[in-house]
């Protein structure tokens, strides 16, 4: 039986809002990828747009452009880190509830940001067919 390595070099990055935000703000400045979804918004003036790179039927990379709401960017980063390497049809099953459950510490009033993030991500997914070609 092999124990899981807990050394900092091997450990998975922590998934707190604050740490996802730090990584997400870097991803938020990255150049768009080939399959770009629509920019979606909410009543609070937030906006989100994802773009995806696909190799075969697998998501190779995800970037986004979002308004600088900390919660929204953290949810966006959580999506990007979760779906990297995932098959497109599996990623399409990701829900706002999944995000909310995976990221404790977000007050109830801010959890609706997960819905915007997932909707924007699905918009990008809709531009990708399962064989990796733009629809």
């Amino acid at each position, binding site marked *: 039986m092999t124990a899981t390595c807990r050394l900092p070099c091997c450990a998975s990055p922590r998934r*707190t809002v*604050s740490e996802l935000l730090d990584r997400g703000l870097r991803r938020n400045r990255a150049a768009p990828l080939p399959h770009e979804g629509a920019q979606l918004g909410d009543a609070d003036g937030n906006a989100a747009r994802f773009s995806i790179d696909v190799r075969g039927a697998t998501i190779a990379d995800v970037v986004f452009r979002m308004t600088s*709401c900390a*919660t929204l960017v953290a949810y966006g980063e959580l999506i990007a880190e979760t779906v990297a390497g995932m098959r497109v049809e599996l990623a399409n099953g990701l829900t706002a509830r999944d995000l909310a459950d995976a990221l404790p510490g977000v007050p109830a009033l*801010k959890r609706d940001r997960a819905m915007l993030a997932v909707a924007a991500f699905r918009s990008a997914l809709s531009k990708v067919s399962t064989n990796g070609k733009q629809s």
Partner: protein
Amino acid sequence: MKVAYIFATSRHSVSYVLAKMILPQLEEKRHGATVVGMFFFEDNNYVLLKDNPIGARLHKIAKEQGILLMGCDQCCYEREIADKLYDGVPIGCFPDLYKALSGNMPDQVITL
């Protein structure tokens, strides 16, 4: 005159200026200005934690006098206290603060 306070420094702004000046004056209804909002940065957000004794008094007086209390969202997330604040106390950033104050705008914003 309507004022909003932004607690931006961490030296004595909460334990002294808020807890020993502003809050007692609000409780005694002799502060001299109508406080419409308070926004908290950095470690000042700990005053908004449930069971904080200063926060308990502040939360009570805020409900009685219609004072908006809001914590900086990134500050609270960084300290992992965003979901541990007094009930009804939101977190947010400047757009949320301005939106929340838009129905009762202060004449002066005072940074402490």
